């Protein structure tokens, strides 16, 4: 018996035992997808937030338009637009040598999630940077630090602590949202569960999936709490 069949065996659920391995693989797909998107999205968001605050006027407008549009439309719609819609321009992608990317549902989902979470994280980071007192900026500049050095050494470290909690929430939102990739033929945790239900008509498999998501989100929440306490320990006694 494989290790992934044990949980089902232990709780005495035949369907969970039969589809345990598929669900474990699905959980890994969910994990991979969210981690890749949120990590790449974070670096994009840093660039976007800084551009939004300090860039030239046209770039500020462009970034603001980007974030407003992606935050104002459903992720499901964005995913379908990328997965089905971009596939329509197959010749173009083949000419530019990007067809291998937009052909795969996983890459399409990762792409959509990355640009989506980048928009949300950019707004979080912008808010955090704006909450750093102005005096910090002025103090650093008067010490002769360059604008970029000020941003990198003085403002961003303080902003990151403020952004920590909302970023954790964004991570949780992404994990939950990732369930929709099962609708573009990807077998993530939700996809594996849908398959198990379609074949067994046993509703309890959805409840087990809910439990797995719940545990996943709860673990992240707890870890994030610890992380926050650890990273802000120099401010604890204020």
């Amino acid at each position: 018996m494989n290790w992934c069949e044990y949980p089902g065996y232990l709780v005495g659920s035949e369907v969970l035992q039969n589809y345990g391995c598929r669900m474990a693989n699905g959980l890994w797909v969910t994990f991979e997808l969210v981690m890749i998107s949120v990590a790449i999205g974070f670096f994009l968001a840093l660039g976007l937030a800084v551009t939004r605050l300090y860039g030239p006027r046209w770039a500020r407008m462009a970034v603001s338009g980007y974030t407003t549009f992606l935050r104002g439309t459903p992720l499901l719609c964005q995913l379908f637009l990328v997965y089905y819609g971009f596939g329509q321009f197959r010749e173009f992608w083949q000419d530019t040598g990007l067809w291998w990317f937009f052909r795969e549902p996983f890459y399409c989902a990762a792409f959509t999630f990355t640009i989506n979470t980048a928009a949300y994280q950019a707004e979080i980071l912008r808010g955090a940077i704006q909450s750093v007192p102005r005096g910090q900026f002025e103090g650093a500049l008067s010490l002769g630090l360059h604008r970029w050095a000020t941003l990198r050494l003085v403002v961003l470290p303080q902003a990151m602590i403020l952004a920590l909690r909302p970023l954790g929430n964004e991570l949780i939102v992404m994990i939950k949202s990732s369930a929709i990739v099962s609708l573009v033929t990807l077998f993530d945790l939700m996809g594996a569960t849908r398959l198990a239900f379609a074949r067994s008509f046993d509703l309890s498999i959805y409840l087990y999936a809910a439990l797995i998501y719940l545990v996943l989100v709860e673990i992240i929440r707890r870890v994030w709490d610890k992380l926050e306490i650890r990273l802000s320990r120099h401010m604890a006694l204020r």
Partner: protein
Amino acid sequence: MFDKFALLGFGAGGWGWALLQGAANTISVALATLPFGLALGLVIALLKRSDHAIPRALATIYTTVFRGVPELLTLYIIYFGIQVLMQQVWTGFSIPPFVAGMVALGLVLAAFSSEVWVGALNSIQKGQREAAAALGLSKAQAFRLVVFPQLIRVALPGLGNNWMVLLKETSLISVITLQDIMFIATRANVVTKEPFLFFGTAMLLYFFFSVISAWGIDRLEQRTNRGQAAFGGATR
């Protein structure tokens, strides 16, 4: 190139009317969910501030569960769950997707909005209730006449966010065949093989509703804050 846009028209072979019908369904399901979710959220919030441990624990479990489980999964569990349960007493029962979607998203909205309500309830000083009690108001009267009007002002920005999230989440109900914007766009894609056009249009429709909502919420906030001197005045 431009003849493609005829597919969005209102004539024969055009999907204009269908998309408008879908937009109407999206808005109605969101509007139907809102009062149910917000009212349940307020009840959960009051339970969270209860003096007894059991209602507090129940409320916490409720929010943990519905905030932690993906909305799509909640939707499936409610849709298939109610179906299976009801079919044991009434064979051939099928739950309308509108109702299933409303219940599922309402339960989720209640969990998220309860956090907003708790925050707002905490911002109202104890003295307000005590003064109301001193004036001889009952607990229910004090809540309705004194606490609630102040609550709305503080809670509005958070509830506005909840509404924006809800509006976008309604797109999920299309997977259980509610004929909303997403459903129509998907069907149009199957028939015409023009996914970019239709999902692009769907996206613009959702964006239009988001912009209108943001504007509406802003107006509401201004209205509820009109008695506050600090708003737009001294502090800025």
